[in-house]
């Protein structure tokens, strides 16, 4: 019996993932995998992810934590002989997996990205004090206290240098038109959802 080649998942990626139409251009040379500074720490290199997409391994790709390991150093884009925008595809895949609710739970990069997003959309400005505390306490209260104590010296130093304001705890600085920012973000989300054929969430 011959196995039929199914490219359903490749088509799905092309339609829904930012720069996903580039995936089929990969010639499997391996330069991205070998050039990635975090390469040894990923489960799946970009080269392997691209092949898995073509092989229809939907579940394995979307639940992989590999895309979340990308630090956007852009070495892979610079070196790719076919000029694939690999960094962008990695972020596109991460974003798509997140939207589908398939992204790995508790993956640290993803958790931090979520905390950062929730922090910045509230007022249109990053509240660094609240963001730091949210990071310290993401693994529970006990760990949070430990983290905060460990970072105490740096925190005091930042305060002395006027780089950190303890008053930020009481709401903090905002942009001029907070409501306007919220409307813009809602509109952008609506446009993106429409473009990606998704609704809500």
């Amino acid at each position, binding site marked *: 019996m011959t196995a039929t080649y199914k490219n359903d998942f490749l088509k799905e990626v092309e339609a829904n993932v930012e720069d996903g139409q580039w995936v089929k251009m990969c010639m499997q040379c391996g330069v991205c995998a070998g*050039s990635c500074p975090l390469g040894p720490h990923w489960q799946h290199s970009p080269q392997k992810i691209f092949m898995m997409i073509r092989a229809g391994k939907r579940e394995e790709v979307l639940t992989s934590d590999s895309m979340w390991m990308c630090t956007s150093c852009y070495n892979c884009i610079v070196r790719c*002989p076919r*000029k694939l925008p690999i960094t962008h595809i990695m972020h596109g895949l991460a974003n798509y997996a997140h939207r589908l609710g398939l992204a790995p739970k508790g993956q640290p990069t993803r958790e931090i990205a979520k905390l950062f997003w929730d922090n910045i959309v509230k007022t249109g400005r990053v509240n660094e004090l609240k963001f730091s505390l949210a990071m310290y306490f993401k693994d529970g209260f006990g760990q949070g206290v430990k983290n905060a104590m460990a970072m105490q010296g740096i925190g005091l130093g930042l305060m002395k240098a006027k780089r950190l304001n303890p008053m930020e705890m009481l709401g903090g600085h905002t942009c001029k038109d907070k409501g306007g920012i919220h409307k813009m973000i809602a509109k952008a989300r609506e446009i993106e959802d429409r473009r990606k054929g998704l609704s809500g969430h």
Partner: protein
Amino acid sequence: MTAPIATNQTILVVGGGISGMTAALEAAECGKQVLLVEKTPTLGGRTAQLYRYFPKMCHPTCGMEINLKRIRGNPNLRTMTMTQVVAVSGSRGDYKVTLKVSPRYVNENCTACGKCGEAVSAEVADAYNYGLSKVRAAYLPHVMAYPQRYVIDASIVGTPEGEKAKAACPVNAVDLDMKEETIEINVGAVVWATGWRPFDANKIQPYGYDRIANVITSVEFERLADPHGPTGGKLLRPSDGNPAKNVAFIQCAGSRDENYLRHCSRICCMASLKQTQYVREAWGDAGKSTIYYIDIRAIDRFEDFYANVWKDSTVSFVKSKVARIAENEANGNPVLHGVDTEGYHRYATEHDLVVLAVGMEPEVTGVKLPADIVMDSSNFIEGSKDGGMFGAGAASSPLDVNRAVQSATAASLKAIQVIHKNASTEAA
């Protein structure tokens, strides 16, 4: 020097490598008047710098010998070395061409006795060995050089070294007063057989060609294997002169890469497969060759050659484009880093020597050609819009010697048609 006589019945062939010699000879042997101009001091081009040809593994000297014999015996063919085309005007059937002739400082009295070379002590980089060795500043380009005439390097003209060469010459051949000349000629058709050059490996930053002594190019490896090369044919690595027994070949070094050369250079897979056999020839079963590749492109009948190399126990293949090369500073060994495609294994592998299978870049890249010339996106010459100028050989496409000869013969036929049309128009 007597200016060559050329008319609109003459075919100008630009470039005296294997393609140019072939195009010129085919037309001349059909009875056409041909002028063959070559930029360097000798005919033969890059083919003469190879140790062996694939697939028959014969030496280029015998093919050169046959072609030179044909050239010597044909009164329709004139050759000019150290000559470059600087401008072309006019149109199909009637071109005005400006040639620049650089001084050789040696006239036709030269018998290639070599006394001038013995007399001087100044040295210059030996272009025949891609600069891997030095040669006296009065030199014969290589043993098969045509014309068999010495060259005095311009750097010693006007110095006591130049005078030494002149004094040593028993036949009054050294003429240090030679000047650059500009010549205008009229021709009917032009064949551009300007050939190729190895892609500049310094541009491939992650491979460290510029900073790791034991990373060399495929054309340099040809010179190492050749008895006329810098090591007398021994495979010794540049850093310490130790035997290079464990040799890595990196394919697509520059080729198939949007950052460097867009095209597949076609010859490099076969060149590396061939060069694994140099390693075997030198060290027998103690030699070891590893080819790192994306795909092996041993086109059409060369598949047999590939299959035979595959069976060779001293040769192994790693399906991976190497990501970067580091150097083991303790022993000078290059260390290859990458991830293979058959299992996605991460490797860091040491070799004695790394040979970059560098791509073919048209020699005219960066050179201003007549406006009428059409080139593809990689600067290979397709021909002229008016149909009177033609690309031939590796100037027209990345080709091996065999296919370059076919291409040159085809270009020659097209040029002959232009001349024929000229002749019939004038007769009518």
